[in-house]
């Protein structure tokens, strides 16, 4: 399946901004099940960008504006090929056996087994884990599925109950949140169980052929991957209570949201506020239209 994605973020400054420095994590990852065929970052005002791969292998694009500017538009355009390879089969393993390797796993996957900024191992999280904790005979993969379903069931998806800086504690106390919170909470529970879990930021392609949505600040979708016996890093989407399928486009991975914000920046101005709006277009392309589509430009740099 081929998808064209255009993720546009607009900033307007009540008082012009200057000395602005930004990092963007919007280029979809390359993996066995996904290939980023093309990627362009269009910036208005135009400026040069630099790239590097961060600690978790996410492609980062950086750019800055020294001079004053009243607005900033960042348009990430990608063409992604999504293949759903046959998944490696999960190897059944009870927790009793799984945890024998816990020490070694803590060394190999430290970052994804321990607390992180949005996933502190707090009292509320520990209590929540304890409620549904596995016993030694339970199968690891089955437990992961059980927790994903449980969390989907127990919490309501509702924007506004939490904030972008919220930790997993907030969804526990509020009873609901957005996909970021569902992911953080599931990650917390799995880590406490000894299962390495990492946060994935990306997009969820629509069912229909294409959509243009204005979704406020949350264009990206968030889910997680758990490292299970046999199947390795396996994707789960707790917001939708299911496993990951070919509609999920992976953009960046990390310990939690703090490692993978789609955009992070600083700027200066003499007062005023920053108004942000986001637009996300995802279009399914059929295979033959890719070869003949004249608009399939690979080097469009916006030179306004």
């Amino acid at each position, binding site marked *: 399946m081929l998808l064209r994605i255009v993720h546009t973020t607009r900033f307007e400054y009540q008082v012009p901004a200057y000395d602005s420095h930004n990092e963007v994590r919007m280029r979809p990852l390359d993996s066995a099940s996904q290939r980023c065929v093309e990627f362009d970052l269009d910036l208005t005002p135009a400026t040069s960008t*630099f790239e590097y791969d961060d600690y978790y292998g996410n492609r980062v694009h950086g750019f800055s504006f020294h001079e004053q500017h009243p607005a900033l538009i960042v348009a990430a355009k990608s063409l992604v090929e999504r293949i759903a390879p046959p998944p490696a089969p999960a190897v059944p393993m009870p927790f009793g056996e799984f945890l024998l390797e816990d020490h070694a796993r803590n060394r190999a996957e430290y970052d994804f087994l321990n607390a992180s900024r949005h996933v502190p191992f707090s009292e509320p999280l520990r209590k929540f884990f304890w409620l549904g904790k596995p016993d030694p005979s339970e199968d690891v993969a089955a437990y992961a599925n059980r927790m994903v379903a449980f969390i989907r069931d127990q919490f309501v998806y509702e924007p506004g109950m939490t904030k972008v800086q919220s930790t997993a504690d907030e969804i526990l106390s509020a009873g609901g949140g957005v996909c970021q919170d569902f992911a953080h909470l599931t990650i917390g529970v799995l880590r406490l169980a000894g299962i390495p879990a990492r946060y994935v930021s990306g997009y969820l392609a629509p069912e229909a052929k294409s959509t243009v949505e204005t979704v406020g600040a949350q264009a990206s979708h968030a889910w997680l991957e758990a490292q299970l016996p046999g199947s390795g890093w396996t994707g789960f989407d707790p917001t939708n209570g299911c496993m990951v399928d070919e509609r999920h486009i992976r953009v960046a991975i990390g310990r939690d949201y703090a490692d993978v914000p789609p955009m992070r920046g600083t700027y200066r101005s003499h007062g005023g506020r920053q108004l942000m709006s986001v637009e996300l277009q995802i279009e399914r392309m059929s295979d033959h239209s890719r070869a003949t589509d004249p608009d399939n430009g690979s080097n469009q740099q916006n030179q306004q």
Partner: protein
Amino acid sequence: MTATVPETGKAVPVWAAYKPVNSAFDEMLDMSSRARPGCQPVVDTMFAMPPAQFTEICARADRMFRRMGVTFNVYGAADGSERIFPFDPIPRVIDADTWANLEAGLIQRVRALNAFLADVYGDGCILSDGVVPRDLVLGCAQFRRAAVGIKPPLGNFVTVAGIDLVRGADGRFYVLEDNVRTPSGVSYVIENRVVMTRLVPNLMRSCRVRSVERYPADLLQCLMEQSPNGKSNPTIAILTPGPFNSAFFEHVFLSQQMGIELVEGVDLVCVDRKLYMKDVHGLRQIDVLYRRIDDDFLDPLVFRPDSLLGVAGLTSVLRAGNAAIANGVGTGVADDKAIYAYTPAMIRYYLAEEPILPIVETFLLRDPEVREQVLKNLDRYVVKPTGASGGYGVVIGPKADEAELAATRDRIVSDPSAFIAQPVIALSVHPTIIHNGSESAMEVAPRHIDFRPFVLLGAKPRVLAGGLTRVALREGSLIVNSSQGGGSKDTWVLEA
């Protein structure tokens, strides 16, 4: 009632009660009250001094320090007065042979720490080979993932190191702690020497004391060698948090001595992945930044977003190789007190040498068996938080009361990997003047000291021939920090 010194036969009223203790190594006199190697001239001179002369010397020293502005800072809103770091005029002497061993050990140590940093921020071989546990490094708050991929010039993560040493009851020097983030104190070393040169010039000359005045020139040389891409005649600046920082005097001092600009965050800007300072005539590029702020505050884009002390985009400048900072990003992982336990292994791993300077035996409390053993005898250990520096958070078992021990026990149990334990080392002692409120009550008594020599790493390593000897002014106290009741002495390393 005055005693006499066996060697000189002179009356020593101030020293009447002085006796080397057998619980700690006295650096001036051995157990028979004979002067240790190199100390005879000091003993001869200072044992003969009457209280009035000591009073005069101390007063002169105080005046000199004030005039030079050697203060540690207290710019309170209503209080403009400045405090002098207490100074004791009896110098601590290190003979040439002892120093030769220390110097070799320090160079070896800093080379290994630097190699460790290059490794953990590079290929991580020492972790894959299981010599240092990977989770110890990754779990260290000072391990900066953003620094992976930044290659400093010459591979030097460390340019300035302050290695804290103590001398045990056996007379051997042990490494107590490494400081490779923003070690401070060298300005006191230099200013103490300036004062002593004026107070006891003849004594100093007769001892043939090695000079410390080259330090700023040597530091400047090392900073120039850190120039990115070997750019010649690089522009260097010191980044200070500003006048309200307790080490501000040192930042000013070093900038003056090296003849380089002293900048604060507000003076800096990154443009097109280059670092500049805001000059009245435009932007001036900086090639090497000697930064005296912590990683957390370096770059609001990557680290703490509320920091005003650093400059947005600095990490990207470093990554592009358009500027270098000293010390590099992420050196704090080598400071960590749990990682410290593995430093002998690092020396063997990177240098294929046996460590010249021993470390203090260290127990990692994350190990349940070790923890159990330590908790059973908590009153016999010194407990330290792994991530803190200086004397903060340290609990000295034998000196703590039941309540403090219980609280410490709780802290350890709730977060064992955050603590290490070490046996109590009886720090060496040195004769120190105790004023006791009046000249007639003045006496010289043994007080605990430690030692912080400074190691520079440029194209090659250099050790300052001297260092900061800190003295715990309160009787029996082992805490030597300036902010916690400590003072300092001039340290004389003798020519061979």
